């Protein structure tokens, strides 16, 4: 029988608020951690601090105006978000995209995946406690990619370059040479980051065996992207349901088996090498041609129907569920967010870890709050 006095010496749990303004919540994500000393007993995530109603506003805009909201929803990989939206509109309106446009889209989407993973490397370094160096390394190459995007689309982040049916305009004439330059810089950057983090003993000790999630749980939570492939599930939309030209080039899906924080980090790192290989192959297959189908209606109207198109964004499956009742506006547009589903597994991964490791687990899922809250 535990006497009354014994209760005073029991350690009462502290409710720690890792709130909306926190250096390592990658935006306005809040979680209340019940902490006993150093060990996390319970995590209650709160989202919704960046809910801006992109879906509602898309319903009042025609198809071309909706592209801007997709950029701003997934603001680290805008090309991937635009791709899903544009492919959904093309699927409903039954538009055939010319080959050249498809190859250019693949190059830009893979480059955007690399820039998003570079941002992850920087932020992950900060979460692991190495404040400046990975951030500076990662962002050096990211600026090179962003400069290339700026030359092509005219904007650094909100490109609005993909249009239903193809591209807004053709790429500049020195496109191939510029992409080769950027690829060379990126290769050097990835090598530096690899050398800096992957073989760093302290980093390995901090990340291996932390935040493990099994394949069955990952599937049950609906996770996707590198987070689920790190647990050994071979789920990659680019290979399972090939879109664009992914079936015509040679690349392989990166998976790991441990399902811990280091596996997720390593999956993203190797994926960057795969993306580099893909971009090089796509560059060889690029030949001049049309970038929009000849007869494009002035105002795009779609027949009634509904479609759910999903593509492989850097964080996971970025799906667009588009219901159209005719006319030039989507009747209902739902953005399936990879980060929202990945976040559901956060509690199971971080309970029982130390507080510092729970922050690392949150960093390893790589969330973008614009996509979680839409």
């Amino acid at each position: 029988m535990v006497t009354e006095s014994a209760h005073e010496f029991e350690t009462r749990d502290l409710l720690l608020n890792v709130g909306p303004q926190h250096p390592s919540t990658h935006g306005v994500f809040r979680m209340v951690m019940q902490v006993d000393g150093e060990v996390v007993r319970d995590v209650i995530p709160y989202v919704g601090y960046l809910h801006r109603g992109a879906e509602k506003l898309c319903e009042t805009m025609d198809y071309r105006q909706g592209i801007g909201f997709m950029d701003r929803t997934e603001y680290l990989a805008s090309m991937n978000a635009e791709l899903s939206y544009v492919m959904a509109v093309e699927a409903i309106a039954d538009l055939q995209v010319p080959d050249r446009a498809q190859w250019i889209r693949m190059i830009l989407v893979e480059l955007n995946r690399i820039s998003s993973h570079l941002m992850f490397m920087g932020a992950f370094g900060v979460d692991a406690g190495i404040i400046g160096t990975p951030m500076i390394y990662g962002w050096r190459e990211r600026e090179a990619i962003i400069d290339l995007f700026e030359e092509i689309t005219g904007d650094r982040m909100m490109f609005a370059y993909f249009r239903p049916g193809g591209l807004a305009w053709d790429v500049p004439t020195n496109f191939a040479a510029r992409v080769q330059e950027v690829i060379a810089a990126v290769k050097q950057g990835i090598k530096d980051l690899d050398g800096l983090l992957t073989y760093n003993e302290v980093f390995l000790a901090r990340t291996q065996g932390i935040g493990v999630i099994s394949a069955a749980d990952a599937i049950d939570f609906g996770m996707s992207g590198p987070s689920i492939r790190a647990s050994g599930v071979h789920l990659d939309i680019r290979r399972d349901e090939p879109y664009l030209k992914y079936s015509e080039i040679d690349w392989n899906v990166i998976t790991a088996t441990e399902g811990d924080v280091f596996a997720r980090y390593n999956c993203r790192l190797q994926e960057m090498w795969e993306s580099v290989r893909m971009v090089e192959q796509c560059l060889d297959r690029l030949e001049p041609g049309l970038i929009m189908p000849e007869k494009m209606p002035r105002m795009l109207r779609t027949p009634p129907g509904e479609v759910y198109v999903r593509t492989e964004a850097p964080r996971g499956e970025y799906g667009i569920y588009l219901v159209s009742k005719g006319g030039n506006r989507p009747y209902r547009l739902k953005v399936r967010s990879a980060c929202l589903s990945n976040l559901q597994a956060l509690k199971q991964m971080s309970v029982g870890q130390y507080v510092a490791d729970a922050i690392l687990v949150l960093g390893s899922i790589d969330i973008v709050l614009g996509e979680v809250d839409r």
Partner: protein
Amino acid sequence: MGQGEVLFDNYVPVLLATIVGFFLVLGALLGSRLLAPFSEEREKSTTYECGMLPIRRAATNVGMRFYLYAILFVIFDVEAVFIFPWAVSFLDIGPQAYWLMVAFIAILALGLGYAWKKGALQWR
């Protein structure tokens, strides 16, 4: 220059250092009181918790582990204080002082070994 002056000369820098230190600290405190525009707001005194109000009082009792680590640190910090003067001059104070210090360090190492075996350093 008798024995007194030598002693006295050595301590002038120490005196100067304390005076300069005193005025530096006083200047900093007075300066901020004088120059900064202070304002008392209710919310300013709330504890900063990432933009949210703290949910429960944070002054709960904390695990024993923290206390054990603190005590062990203090002990070996004090030991280090004893080693410094010896380390500076152990060449010219003969072997006998050397072995005395080794014994001193051995005893404390024994204490650390005991704490280690009893699991005081065990964190989980």
